């Protein structure tokens, strides 16, 4: 049960990062297959069924641009971040850094504060 709970929470956490990861990876032009490969190589596992609808949605929101081009005798759809996408990504990354800073602060408070460090069991160890 604990494993299932952890797995659900882990997926929720990773799902929240996908949009930022995809937008960040598309600062360089890529097509779907290479984009997915890049993300997987960096530890962001995203299945094909999620990636392509996400790309369409972001393009529909004006955050990406795309075009069909022929490469190695095959037509591929290349995506890249639009100007608006660059602006939104910068704001999202600022938000991300803010959250990271806040979380780091909370964890340090736990380590040095009254409650003591968080043990592997999840409960505060004796100070």
């Amino acid at each position, binding site marked *: 049960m604990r494993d299932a709970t952890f797995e659900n929470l882990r997926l929720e956490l990773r799902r929240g990062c996908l949009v930022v990861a995809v937008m960040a990876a598309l600062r360089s032009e890529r097509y779907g*297959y290479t984009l997915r490969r890049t993300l997987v190589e960096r530890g962001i596992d995203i299945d*094909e069924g999620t990636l*392509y609808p996400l790309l369409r949605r972001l393009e529909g929101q004006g955050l990406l641009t795309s075009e069909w081009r022929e490469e190695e005798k095959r037509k591929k759809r290349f995506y890249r971040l639009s100007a608006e996408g660059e602006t939104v990504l910068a704001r999202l990354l600022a938000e991300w850094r803010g959250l990271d800073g806040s979380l780091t602060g909370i964890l340090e408070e736990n380590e040095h504060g009254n409650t003591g460090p968080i043990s592997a069991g999840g409960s505060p160890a004796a100070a």
Partner: protein
Amino acid sequence: METLDRYLRAVRPLLPRAQRDDIVAELSEEIRSQMAAREAALGRPLSADDEDDVLRGYGHPMLVGGRYQAAQGHLAFGRELIGPELFPFYVGAIKYTFAVSLTIQAVVLAALSFWEPLTFGGILNAVWLHVVIQFAVLTLVFCGLQVQVTRFPNEWDSERTSSERAAAERQPTPASVRFESACEFVVLLLVLRGLFALHGASGAALGPLRLAPVWGAATLPALVAVAATMIQALAIAFRPDWVRYRRPVRAAALAVWLGAVGYLLQAGPWVVAAGPRVPEKLPDLNRLVFHNGLLAVGATLVVALVWEIVGFWRERAKPV
């Protein structure tokens, strides 16, 4: 890459119409890239199982199509019953079913108003029950579908899963269509005879009881629906290629039947005392036999109507 072509043919009709060609082209290219990479890694051509593995990563065609739809949402009651991929199709099915059935009910009720004045309460009674039953049936169907596509992501390929099933799903022969239509005509003739008898018996005494006059008004639209379906069955017996119109006509007839049952449900009692003395069990007879019986008939008609509509939609979605 026959499997890939079949997969894309299965996905295509489930995509938003405006982007269909574009999405299919993109998916085709990406899946081919993935299969080429796997072939290179294995150092041999992909087997059918390898191809299935690649496609499993994308999911059942219904899930793929649903992810591209705009109306994302989900239905949950504690646990998720209908996921975000199927939710757009669920909403579409509800809108379509309600639109068709409410339109036909409006026409039937308008026609019936010539025989008996209708009240707002009566109309509401006739309509709300259909709405509730249709909503419940559609929700159950899509909950089952969610389980099916999640647990069996590769069970979309009827041509591969069973050659016998694939053979059965091929276009029926003209002889079988004619035979089926002839049988349908005969059965409907018996139903028509029964309806005429019911229409004639409306108000007639049956011992201490008699059928309420409401049966006369309710059977008329049903007679028309049966007659229309009989004409169609006869036409198909002579012109088997007209079988493609069977489902819409059946669906319309079922909707008319549903309207008649709805009218009957709000128009009780269904049997009344033939004389001045009211039998003791008369209210129980009306409630237990006629009311519950009509509810059961109504539920069956809703299921049949949904079956015809879904069947018609699937037949239209098949590539020519």
